[in-house]
């Protein structure tokens, strides 16, 4: 290693160590979370290079072969390679969960801003609906919505997205109400700033910081709901590789001692959810230590 490279590395190392000293465990939780996410993202982006087989190929190996040899995680009853399916399956779950979180945050933030800023009847009726959905088990609504939309990646994304809108709505509405009373907003209004200017310039930037944390945690929840829906047999066509569906299909081989069809997809779902949760927790503690203890 030459001198310039060492100097180049020294700064990031100092940065990481410094952050570790400043925030303690939280910083390392954040880093581990980010690392898991990056690894699985890499898996999704470079699937064809990582997977040894085509995930749909039905003669990749012998039937129900145990993990080992060329089959890192064994094969299923259709003689497909489980590891290759895990690699390609990461695309589906990431796409659905991140997109769902984006959609629900968009609508949640928008409605929250409107509701909190406008007040009155709009606010009351919106809050009533959102609260009802919020306290109700989201999975049940997602099941009904997934059955309504029918199978498909976008359909399931919408089903998951709808149930998390209230989470953002409540958060943003509360903050909007608080910020609306602040002196500088009053001042802006006094000098004749329009509603859009106030919402866009003063309220939105304040709100966005806290939603970042909620967004990360929300992706973790969306991952689990997506997998739950496909596990229950709602949601995706078979031409798409998905962890939850593979897990459900492997379930009936469990009593015969075929443990690998269930173990690996479940492990990956947990790991991915863990990645986002750790990132979210770490961010929360560092950005706003009181957020999670409410």
């Amino acid at each position, binding site marked *: 290693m030459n001198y310039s490279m060492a100097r180049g590395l020294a700064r990031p190392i100092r940065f990481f160590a410094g952050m570790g000293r400043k925030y303690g465990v939280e910083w390392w939780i954040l880093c581990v979370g980010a690392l898991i996410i990056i690894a699985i993202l890499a898996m999704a982006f470079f699937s064809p290079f990582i997977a040894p087989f085509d995930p749909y190929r039905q003669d990749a190996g012998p039937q129900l072969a145990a993990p080992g040899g060329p089959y890192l995680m064994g094969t299923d009853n259709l003689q497909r390679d489980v590891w290759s399916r895990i690699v390609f399956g990461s695309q589906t779950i990431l796409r659905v969960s991140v997109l769902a979180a984006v959609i629900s945050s968009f609508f949640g933030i928008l409605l929250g801003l409107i509701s909190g800023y406008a007040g009155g009847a709009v606010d009351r009726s919106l809050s*009533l609906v959102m609260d*009802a959905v919020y306290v109700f088990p989201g999975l049940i609504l997602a099941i009904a919505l997934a059955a309504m939309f029918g199978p498909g990646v976008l359909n399931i994304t919408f089903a998951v997205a709808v149930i998390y809108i209230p989470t953002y709505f409540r958060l943003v509405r509360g903050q909007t109400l608080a910020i609306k009373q602040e002196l500088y907003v009053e001042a802006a209004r006094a000098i004749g700033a329009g509603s859009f200017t106030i919402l866009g310039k003063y309220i939105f930037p304040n709100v966005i910081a806290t939603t970042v944390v909620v967004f990360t945690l929300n992706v973790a929840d969306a991952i689990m709901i997506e997998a739950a829906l496909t596990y*229950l047999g709602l949601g995706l066509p078979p031409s798409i590789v998905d962890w939850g569906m593979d897990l459900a299909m492997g379930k009936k081989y469990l009593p015969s001692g075929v443990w690998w069809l269930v173990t690996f997809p*479940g492990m990956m779902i947990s790991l991915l959810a863990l990645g986002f*949760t750790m990132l979210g927790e770490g961010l929360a503690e560092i950005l706003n230590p009181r957020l999670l203890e409410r």
Partner: protein
Amino acid sequence: MRNLVRYIISRTLMTIPMVLILLTIIFVVLRLMPGDPVSAMLGGHAPEKVIEQKREQLGLNRPMYIQYADYIWKVCHLDLGESMVLQQEVTEAISDKLPATIELTTFGMLITLVLGIFLGAYAADKRRTMRDSAIRLYGIVVYCIPVYWLGLMLQLVFGIWLDWFPIAGRTGARIFPSDFENTGFYLIDTLLMRDWTAFGDVLLHLVLPAFTLGLTLSGIFVRLTRANMLDVLKADYILAAESRGIGHGTIVYRHALKNAFIPILTMMGLQVALLMAGAILTETTFSWPGMGRLLLERIYLRDYPTIQGVIIVFALMVAFISLLVDIIYAIVDPRIRY
């Protein structure tokens, strides 16, 4: 006391719009779903004439708003109607399955509370040590494990490899619930009948599903308890107690925990939704004949009245528990005035 009664009444009334909103959402969603109960129930060959006749019989060809008004009117009279696919009252289907779900969730919650609160308090006591970090990590990891996967793994290890516990159903093949069934809560029923064999069998069947549900939810409670305990342990009266020479264990696990309990209790109310979602998935994994399985089965059959009935029950359960928590809160903490 008068205030409390008034509060309870107003809170109870507030659940009505909530149930109504959810019911409306689900009503619309169900009608927008492709397929209807008639096509779901028919096999290969049914002449179109018969199909039309059945739709008319069930009132499915009326305009949606009339069906809706009709249904809401009935619900207001506490009539949940009759299933559209089976000759069965909706209330009968629900009262058949509800005890199974309540039994499962109660024991799941019990395990969660014991595990979560003990571990959380212990972690707070040993804060900033390796043990604390390990427990916190446990809390995060356990929260991220899908409940059905945990269930399957427990089945694999304790049911199939070790063969300690049964992996599905509420009773074994030679225990017949009709011998003792009374309330539908099998543990209570077998106790009432003093049928110890059956009681043991029922308990044994409850172990894996309850642990599955309990373990996954314990993560949140570890975190909550730890956070609240940390606050309490910093309080003056704890320091005072310490200086008076009261045993450390007594302070942490009796005084501090008692004070941290109220916030934990409120959080419990908010976790009900999670508990029920977990119950639905646990029921599917363990073939537990409860509300979750009923709901899924009937969604496939497009049995509108039964699905709507199940939704009402879930909504009422959520409302009831949060109400209960609020009441306990009000009684325990006399500072709260409404």
